[in-house]
């Protein structure tokens, strides 16, 4: 029985064509980023690095740096709490015995929702006048803690991140729970026999053994921060002012609202550079593991 070249072509051709097309489109984006294309129809007018100069040092500098700063805030403030809370919950689930079956989906279900649903829901949670959070605070007599939340430019990005933490903690938890379940049970037995408390076991047994899962969680969450768009669109539309704009949002507005296609492509290239720094090592690492 022969596995011929024809079979190879038959099975692999669709993926190859699609992947080549995707890379072609990436190259196209890079080409457009060096063009002075404004308006709907393609304009091929070579502009060198002009778009990047406009973004990094010219008229759009302040706007770009607001987006970059917000992406940086997302990177720090979203990932650390999501990953650590996920790990904490995973360890908790491992300890509560059979209740795990009931509890696990209650933390994981938000990942099944669209960011648009999450945004609709949380925009209301955070509404300054008629929001659920302020309402709850007033109800339990903590009305002085009420905040303008997403209407406060200094607070708004953190509010968006709060919604994303809610959505992604269960995802991190599930990856960590799988990692904990993959550990040999004897380690936990040994720790218990040695009289280790839960906290000590967590610190000295669990944490050193979930590095692998942490790599996956962190890589995936970084990618979430590099494409966060829906949540910003739905909850604040970049506002108040431009205070919650992030690169993917700025890219969309520049391209599809203001029709500065060249500028939009240049922002895409910045996203590409940041994403490649994560995706290429991750792809390399996955390939080595799966093909080993």
């Amino acid at each position, binding site marked *: 029985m022969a596995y011929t070249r024809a079979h*190879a072509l038959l099975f692999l051709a669709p993926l190859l064509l699609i992947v080549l097309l995707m890379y072609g489109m990436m190259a196209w984006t890079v080409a457009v980023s060096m063009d002075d294309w404004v308006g709907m129809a393609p304009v091929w007018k070579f502009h060198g690095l002009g778009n990047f100069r406009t973004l990094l040092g010219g008229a759009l500098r302040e706007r770009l740096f607001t987006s970059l700063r917000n992406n940086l805030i997302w990177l720090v403030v979203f990932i650390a709490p999501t990953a650590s809370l996920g790990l904490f919950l995973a360890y908790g689930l491992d300890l509560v015995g059979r209740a795990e079956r009931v509890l696990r989906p209650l933390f994981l279900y938000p990942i099944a929702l669209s960011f648009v649903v999450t945004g609709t829901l949380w925009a209301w949670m955070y509404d300054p006048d008629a929001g659920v959070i302020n*309402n709850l605070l007033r109800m339990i007599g903590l009305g002085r803690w009420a905040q303008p939340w997403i209407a406060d430019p200094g607070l708004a990005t953190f509010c968006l991140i709060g919604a994303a933490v809610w959505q992604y903690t269960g995802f991190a938890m599930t990856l960590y729970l799988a990692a904990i379940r993959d550990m040999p049970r004897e380690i936990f037995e040994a720790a218990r026999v040695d009289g280790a408390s839960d906290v000590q076991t967590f610190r000295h047994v669990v944490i050193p053994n979930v590095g692998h899962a942490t790599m996956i969680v962190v890589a995936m969450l970084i990618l979430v921060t590099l494409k966060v768009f829906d949540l910003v669109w739905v909850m604040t539309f970049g506002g108040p002012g431009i205070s919650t704009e992030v690169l993917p949002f700025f890219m969309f507005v520049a391209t599809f609202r203001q029709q500065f296609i060249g500028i939009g492509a240049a922002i895409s290239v910045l996203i590409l550079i940041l994403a490649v720094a994560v995706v290429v090592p991750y792809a390399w690492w996955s390939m080595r593991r799966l093909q080993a």
Partner: protein
Amino acid sequence: MKQPPSRQVWLACMGFLALLWLLPLYTMLANSLKTIREIAQSQYVLPPSGLELRNYVVALGVLRHGLVNSTLVALPATALAVLLGSWAGFFLSRLRFRYSQTVFFAATIATFLPYQIVLIPLTQLLADLRLINTRPGLIVAYVLLNTPMAALITATFFQTVPAEMQEAAALDGCGPVAFYWRILLPVAQLGLLSTAILIFTTIWNEFLIPTAMTQGTFNQLATPVLAGLKGNYAQLWHIQMAGATLTSLPPLVIFVFLGRYFVSGLMAGTLK
């Protein structure tokens, strides 16, 4: 050995956090069933006094084209992406050749890069094909964007099928095409289900592509319509929540009834 009392502490702590995590879902469902009068009283955490199903009628009036379009785009796009992807997944997992690793590597990068990077050329491509603002156009876009992912995940599921099975089939004169259709697909059907669930929910929940490529009530998918509904029904939380519930229904139903496969797809999607 006696169970330490710490389990009770953990249980209480986890239970409390679970309630906190449920609060948004509860407020969504509870308030989607309240009357405008109840909403105006701002007692959002109280349960509804009755079942105001008219909210859903109003929300459905706005969302119905979007929900139909999302279904008619997500189902065929998922089927096509899983079919085309599983061919490559079969190849990558079973038939080693010199460039397997290169293909795998290239497909992984294409899978994980943010859509923004190909958004402008993709829009242009669909405009050139006169498919912009149509369902077939959205299907094409989603098949392109999801087939690499489908290939990688099906490859990881196919890898768990023992190699002996293929050798035995080959001895009986079963060629690769027959092996793929008659043996591999049936044996790996739960893996395929997980892959399909992941891709379907990804497409259903996606927002960027339809926002860039469609406009007008009749062509939009559910997510941009819901985003629009939020603007048009400002402060009318009961209508907004009914709309949000309708939009999240298909993925939530899958999550509740096919949870195991949802989770296994989610995990496989990270190439864990």
